[in-house]
């Protein structure tokens, strides 16, 4: 494994596909697809518009796309996430903004579903729709087969934030208890909709 972890810096943008077997930290921007056997961390100020298939996912920034995490998903207070989510363990902290469907059951089934949907009709997949920015994500990734239960307020009680000890244990590899980067400057890179539209509902 690498002696350095992989970091996509603040001023860097990648469009395309990223695959690998090590931890990835995104501070800048990634559009496309991310497929890792390890952890993905989307830091505060980072923007990821991609279908994500990883082991553990920690989000403090903005993420739009279908998410499959074979181990856990941790949405930190500054997270803004739009897209369906499949993972056996899901943690959402107070302040995190999320819209989409959550599936805490069979990850493999969800993974297959995402894959087949991407092949069958890419134009209709949530991530493709989301790419037509600056249309607000409200229209983008909302496969409302479930009645409007998708409201954050209604889902919230189901996801109880675990005690601090458990939280750190859940994201063993790449999640430092506190993110080193400070709020402010970097966040200005986020598009306007990422800052307000989700909140406004």
């Amino acid at each position, binding site marked *: *494994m*690498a002696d*350095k*972890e*992989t*970091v*996509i*810096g*603040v*001023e*860097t*943008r*990648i*469009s*395309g*596909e*990223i*695959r*690998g*077997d*090590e931890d*990835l930290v995104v501070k*800048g921007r990634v559009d*496309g697809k991310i497929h890792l056997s390890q952890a993905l961390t989307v830091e505060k100020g980072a923007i990821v518009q991609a279908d994500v298939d990883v082991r553990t996912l920690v989000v403090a920034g903005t993420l739009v796309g279908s998410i499959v995490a074979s181990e856990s998903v941790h949405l930190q207070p500054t997270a803004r996430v739009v897209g369906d989510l499949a993972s056996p363990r899901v943690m959402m902290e107070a302040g995190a903004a999320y819209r989409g469907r959550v599936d805490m059951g069979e990850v493999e089934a969800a993974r297959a579903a995402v894959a087949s949907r991407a092949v069958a009709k890419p134009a209709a997949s949530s991530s493709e729709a989301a790419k037509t920015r600056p249309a607000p994500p409200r229209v983008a990734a909302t496969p409302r087969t479930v009645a409007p239960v998708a409201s954050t307020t209604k889902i919230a009680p189901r996801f109880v934030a675990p005690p601090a000890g458990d939280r750190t244990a859940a994201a063993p590899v790449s999640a430092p208890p506190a993110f080193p980067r400070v709020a402010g400057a970097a966040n200005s890179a986020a598009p306007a909709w990422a800052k307000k539209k989700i909140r406004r509902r």
Partner: protein
Amino acid sequence: MANTVIGSSIVIDGEITGEESLTILGTVKGKISTAQSVVVEAAATVEADVDAQTVLISGKVTGNVTAREKLELRPEAKMVGNAKAPRIVVADGATFKGNVDMDV
């Protein structure tokens, strides 16, 4: 130091653009464009056109490389493609195939 690092087990297929330095230990296919330096480490493989201020190659690069300041091929470097830079350094042991344009 490098702000963006592509680790040894990472494969990127697409385009990397940025304003900061980039260190590659893994594989990148597509296109690389940055305002700062690009470092291709010894075990790295790059199949991409590279556009940067300075480019330092110790690994394997296939593609056209444009450096606004300097291109350096280290002894372990293997490069196939056209090189364009005002200053080009090729170390003893480096292999290179392609055109050189130093804008003279």
